[in-house]
């Protein structure tokens, strides 16, 4: 019977990580639904970008208050995960504070003391975030588009992180108190918990302290497993996907929109006086013809755009700087990514249920993202500049506009007029090309 703890632990561990792996595979499968895109060039620049933006948080600190608080939570989260190694070893082998046997007394004290400070910083971070989000009225965090699940999700994340850190400190305090009484061997240093919770815990009985230490340890462990599996349902996925998203980010100049190669071929053929319009296409040429121009549904978006949709943490920095949104138009870049993810999730569930995607009569366009939103975009790139993890909602807007214009001819009337003018008069206005140099003689 003495091994029962270890067995339960192992089962939970395997189940927790197993479920998590399953979720990740599902996300991977869903992203694969998008079109392939080659973003494997400039590898060193990509690693550098990821290190700077995702690991180094370089864009987060552009808004100092949120940036620094986020840094607390981020650094705390990463380092406290080292604690997870200790928990796993202790849990499987029934050891107590396993890392102390490797680190040596002085370094283990330093290690535990660091974790304590970080845990406190995380607590401060999440408490301030909670207040900011719920009571302080930061506009981008209280917008209507976040009502419902996105708002609850955000609060759940903060509450879970808070609870995990409190459990961590409780565990340490109980341990510390028992060490003081000589009931546990002296390992580590606990500056925060001994001073904050220590005075209260000193009054507890030995038995209750042992119970508290164990209970908090288990809570912390189960909490981590739960949180890990909660990620799949949450916008908090960014803690993992921010890394690939920054790695696969668009490194070109922001003003450079992609040129469709299939169109180039057509136009070159059109302009070539020697081309025979009735000639049979060359062998294999047919496969070059795209089935569709632009994007109507998630299948037409590329895999990086779909990865972006999963990576978005809905912070709304993009929306808060969007000129269309600022002036009360329906467009919100954040919502473009959120809706793309919603649709992608819906398609994923459809595939889970039917084995393959069965037409559900819905599309990303119209059912999720409306024309009005798409046409409000000025392509100014404020959103892509603001995103702390280099997501690109503008590219989705652009691809969907392409679909509207090239597949459906559904541009606003004035734009149709402009395009006709460009086509016929080589200028967006109805002027004669022969008058182009008139200004020189005015």
């Amino acid at each position, binding site marked *: 019977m003495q091994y029962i703890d270890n067995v339960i632990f192992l089962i939970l561990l395997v189940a927790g990580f197993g479920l998590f792996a399953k979720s990740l595979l599902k996300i991977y499968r869903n992203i694969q639904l998008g079109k392939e895109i080659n973003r494997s060039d400039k590898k060193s620049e990509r690693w550098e970008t990821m290190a700077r933006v995702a690991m180094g948080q370089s864009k987060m600190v552009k808004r100092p208050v949120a940036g620094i608080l986020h840094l607390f939570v981020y650094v705390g989260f990463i380092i406290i995960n080292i604690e997870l190694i200790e928990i796993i070893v202790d849990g499987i082998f029934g050891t107590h504070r396993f890392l102390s046997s490797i680190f040596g007394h002085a370094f283990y004290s330093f290690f535990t003391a660091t974790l304590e400070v970080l845990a406190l910083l995380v607590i401060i971070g999440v408490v301030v975030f909670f207040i900011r989000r719920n009571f302080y009225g930061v506009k981008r965090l209280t917008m209507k588009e976040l009502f419902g699940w996105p708002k609850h999700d955000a609060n759940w994340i903060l509450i879970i992180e808070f609870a995990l850190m409190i459990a961590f400190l409780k565990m340490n305090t109980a341990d510390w108190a028992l060490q003081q009484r000589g009931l546990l061997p002296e390992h580590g240093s606990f500056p925060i918990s001994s001073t904050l919770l220590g005075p209260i815990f000193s009054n507890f009985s030995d038995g209750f302290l042992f119970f508290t230490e164990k209970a908090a340890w288990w809570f912390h462990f189960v909490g981590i497993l739960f949180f890990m599996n909660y990620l799949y349902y949450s916008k908090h996925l960014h803690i993992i996907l921010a890394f690939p998203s920054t790695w696969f980010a668009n490194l070109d100049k*922001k003003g*450079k929109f992609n040129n469709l190669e299939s169109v180039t071929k057509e136009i070159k053929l059109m*302009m070539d006086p020697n081309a025979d319009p009735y000639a049979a296409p060359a062998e294999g040429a047919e496969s070059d013809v795209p089935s569709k121009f632009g994007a109507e549904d998630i299948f037409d978006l590329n895999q990086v755009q779909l990865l972006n949709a999963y990576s978005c943490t809905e912070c709304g920095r993009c929306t808060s700087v969007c000129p269309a949104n600022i002036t009360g138009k329906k467009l919100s870049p954040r919502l473009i990514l959120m809706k793309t993810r919603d649709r992608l999730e819906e398609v994923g569930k459809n595939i889970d249920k039917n084995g393959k995607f069965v037409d559900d009569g819905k599309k990303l366009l119209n059912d999720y993202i409306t024309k009005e939103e798409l046409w409000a975009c000025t392509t100014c790139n404020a959103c892509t500049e603001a995103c702390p993890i280099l997501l690109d909602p503008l590219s989705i807007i652009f691809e969907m506009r392409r679909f*509207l214009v090239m597949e459906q001819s559904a541009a606003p009337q004035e*734009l149709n007029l402009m395009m006709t003018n460009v086509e016929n008069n080589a200028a967006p206005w109805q002027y004669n090309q022969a008058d182009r*140099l008139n200004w020189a003689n005015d």
Partner: protein
Amino acid sequence: MDFNIKTMAEYAAEGKAPEVLFWVGCAGSFDDRAKKITKAFCKILNKIGVEFGVLGQEESCTGDPAKRAGNEFVFQMMALTNIEVLNAYEVKKIVTACPHCFNTLKNEYPSLGGHFEVVHHTQFLKTLMEEGRLKIEGGAFKGKKITFHDPCYLGRANNEYEAPRILLEKLDAELVEMKRCKTNGLCCGAGGAQMFKEPEKGNKDINIERTEEALSFEPKVIATGCPFCNTMMTDGVKHFNKNEEVAVKDIVELLAEADDL
């Protein structure tokens, strides 16, 4: 114009090639307000003796508004035609006063076979100044309050924030920055083909929001570096009935005026 504007065809007929091709753009060619920018820029180039050619009737829209509206066909039709013309004249260097032309020529033409060195007029003038060819003196603008509105397609799209500011500083004016400037600059509302359509429903128009911000500093001049920004800001200033007190001017117009050209 009191001097002759030469076309690339004329240069070619003489068997010569100018130092640079000035890509005028549709706004610069046809829009009455933007034509003044075109002329001011030509006056500066003429004064310091830069040999430049224009395409004139051979120039077409770069395709930018069609592209950003989503019409790849029309865009590439324009682009491939323009590239053919530019390559026929063996053009190496292009300068343009329109950030939209600048961005398209610079970033979207290369993969279609158009490889040119493309610079914005502020970049070009900055280089001329550094080479000692262009001398700028404050003149009429000494000590006056000027605020600069960053064009998205020069700034965020191509990371050029310094060239226009360096030129403005040379005017000895008091350059005040709006809160939303450089990487955080707010769009004038015309980009992405918005210039050619009514805005979607909202609380206000983007150019009003932007002009409001610029006017809050009570500047004498709102400086622009894009013909579309110029139009949008001019409309904004009119909206607030400030067109008597506040001028909206392109940087080259300011330089030309300071020099009494």
